[in-house]
């Protein structure tokens, strides 16, 4: 029993250390965005020789949204001799195929659908097949619910003039913020995540994350790395680490902004966050050691990459630590540290540490010029517990995946646009 108590106490200290590190990370990023030197992106470069681009749009039963994105694609500002769109119809059972064929018939030089009704299912497998068909040097991916602005492709493609950049990530902005409190809160999170977190990592030459959509990569580089791993749920995070480990950089384009449809129901969000956690943690298990051993990346890039890899483990650590602390409390063994310095640490952590992510979100809103909606930040407290639960479940899923070597099944996020349109009309 004594051994168990010692282990539990050590686990609590470990958790405190992990939380302190992530708190410092939040503050460093926030302070960098507020007061640090800002590193400019490549959007000021105008170049008449940008490389050929292929847009990939994975679609599974997307009849509600696919017309919108195809219409947007036809308005894109790019040399159409160097531009093609491959919507990937991945086992759709609704009218997606018919709609794609309709557009392909009207614009055969630009829209070249790929219909998949055999072989491996899921986004990574679909992307792999499309990579074989694509002719562009640069691959840019959008989800089917996205609404890209006209200038975004040039803005993304230009960063590949930097010979070290293998992938680039743009910024996602929810279009349906007005729907309910969940979409409002997701908008806050996106603001903190992109405007502060990603941009600060770009400023500090760390490891911005390629997010799988509103972003692109060099086709040949990904083919050389062996395409996407079809067993991975988080193929985007995996690509970030594979590129980093092979000496490529991920750029972040804060001004390559694109609207997305945020989940409008808690059940959908729960499934999404659990899937992200499962996929991300799977990547962490696979790449943690290679990251530690890598010769290509600097010490601080390595530290950032490891913290990025571990970001979906922290909620599970915290949740299990809460259980451990309760056990210690009822065993009468809560006294781990005593003294003034520890008391000061607790006070400081309660004052600043607990709120570090909220400062980050608030800073994001401030930089975006959204002042009123910062009033919603206290409600993120509820999201914290919600995410802690579902992220921990995702971690458990990933752990089981590792232990049992079971196959993961891709589940797409439900769309709401059609419902919203129906609601509007009614």
């Amino acid at each position: 029993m004594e051994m168990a108590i010692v282990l539990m106490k050590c686990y609590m200290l470990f958790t405190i250390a992990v939380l302190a590190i992530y708190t410092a990370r939040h503050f460093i990023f926030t302070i960098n965005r507020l007061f640090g030197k800002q590193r400019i992106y490549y959007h000021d470069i105008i170049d008449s020789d940008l490389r050929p681009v292929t847009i990939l749009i994975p679609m599974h039963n997307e009849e509600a949204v696919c017309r919108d994105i195809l219409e947007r694609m036809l308005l894109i500002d790019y040399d159409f001799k160097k531009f093609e769109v491959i919507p990937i119809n991945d086992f759709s059972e609704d009218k997606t195929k018919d709609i794609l064929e309709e557009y392909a018939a009207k614009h055969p030089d630009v829209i070249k659908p790929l219909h998949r009704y055999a072989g491996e299912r899921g986004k990574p497998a679909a992307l792999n097949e499309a990579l074989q068909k694509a002719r562009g040097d640069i691959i840019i991916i959008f989800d089917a619910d996205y609404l890209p602005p006209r200038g975004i492709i040039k803005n993304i493609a230009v960063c590949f003039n930097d010979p070290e950049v293998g992938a680039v990530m743009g910024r996602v902005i929810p279009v349906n913020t007005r729907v309910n409190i969940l979409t409002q809160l997701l908008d806050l999170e996106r603001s903190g995540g992109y405007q502060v977190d990603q941009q600060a990592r770009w400023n500090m030459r760390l490891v911005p994350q390629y997010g799988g959509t509103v972003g692109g990569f060099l086709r040949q580089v990904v083919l050389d790395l062996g395409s996407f791993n079809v067993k991975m749920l988080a193929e985007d995070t995996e690509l970030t680490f594979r590129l980093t480990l092979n000496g490529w950089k991920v750029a972040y384009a804060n001004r390559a902004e694109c609207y997305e449809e945020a989940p409008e129901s808690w059940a959908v969000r729960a499934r999404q966050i659990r899937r992200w956690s499962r996929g991300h943690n799977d990547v962490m298990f696979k790449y943690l050691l290679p990251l530690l051993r890598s010769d290509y990346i600097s010490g601080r890039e390595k530290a950032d990459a490891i913290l990025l890899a571990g970001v979906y483990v922290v909620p599970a650590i915290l949740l299990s630590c809460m259980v451990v602390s309760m056990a210690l409390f009822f065993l009468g063994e809560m006294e781990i540290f005593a003294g003034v310095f520890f008391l000061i640490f607790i006070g400081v952590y309660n004052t600043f540490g607990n709120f570090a992510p909220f400062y980050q979100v608030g800073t994001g809103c401030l930089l975006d010029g959204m002042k009123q909606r910062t009033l919603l930040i206290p409600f993120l407290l509820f999201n914290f517990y919600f995410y802690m639960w579902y992220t921990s479940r995702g971690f458990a899923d990933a752990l089981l995946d590792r232990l049992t070597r079971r196959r993961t099944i891709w589940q797409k996020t439900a769309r709401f646009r059609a419902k919203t349109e129906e609601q509007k009309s009614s």
Partner: protein
Amino acid sequence: MIVFLCVRFLVFSFVWPFIGGWREMYAANDAIPLFINMDYMKDPRYFAISFRRFFKNFLNNEDLRPGIYELRFSKPEKVCVLENSVLSSERTLDVIAYAPRDLATENGVSFEKEIYVRGSAAIGQNNDLRALVCDGDVSLAKNTVLRRWLDAEGNISAGEGCNLGVSLTSGKECLVAAGCVFRRLYGAPVKAGTSRKKSFALAARDDEERVFPPPPLGAKERQLEEIWPYSDTRFSVITPNRLWVGANSRILGHIKTYGNLNVDDNVLITGNVFAEGDIVIGQFCKILGDIFAQGSVSIGEGSQVGRPGKIKSVVGNQTVFLSSGAAVYGYVTTEGDGRVL
């Protein structure tokens, strides 16, 4: 007392932080999605294109007689259709000026609003302009101050000591004399100095028309700090520190440095040049790709960036200095101080 304290604690902990949020949740005063301009396309001549379109709608293909008219921009504005093509010295015009043909100004003329010239414009010394759109050529005499932007379909020549405002763009050549300061220049090409003669970059003599294929993606050298004079490098160079490129060398690839980059005279680089520090390009070099620095960029005398028929960019986050005879086919921009030496 205890009950009061408990209630106060509960209110301050669980009610007070959420009151503003509840109000915002229901009133949704700030719930509109963050604005993205869905039609935005990067065009260095955007201001002028937009102004011309707007003004041509106003003109509606009519030949306006000299006089004062009203035009509705974001607010109502007066437009003065100029009768004389020459404006006398020390005159101040506080309305939008429209010259149906050529326009010439004497010394010290001040324009507080935009000017649209359908012919060519010859702006006298020490003039003060807000914005000028011209369908022909523009010449700015020395020490002219441009507050915002200038665009010409034809050639632009700016005399010594001009302040070129936020943006100076041309459909043809843009000649900018020593002592001019700028933020953005665009032309085919932008040339520093007063001579319209072609640049004599070493590489220009050898490789004017030659097309260089991009280097293979994997062909990169990561630890170089020096490239020797008269050497040929057939791969891209990425270095975690500074890099020095010796005179008369040729690099058939891209360069990326995390420190400063110094390029000696008569060097040819066929790819793009990126640096996290400063970039100093020597005399008579030829860079066929873009130049981008998080620090400063300095282009030496007689050097050339890009080539005819292409658009390339020189971007320096902190400063851009162009020496006499330097030519950039495309776009030059800086967030800080741009200057012709």
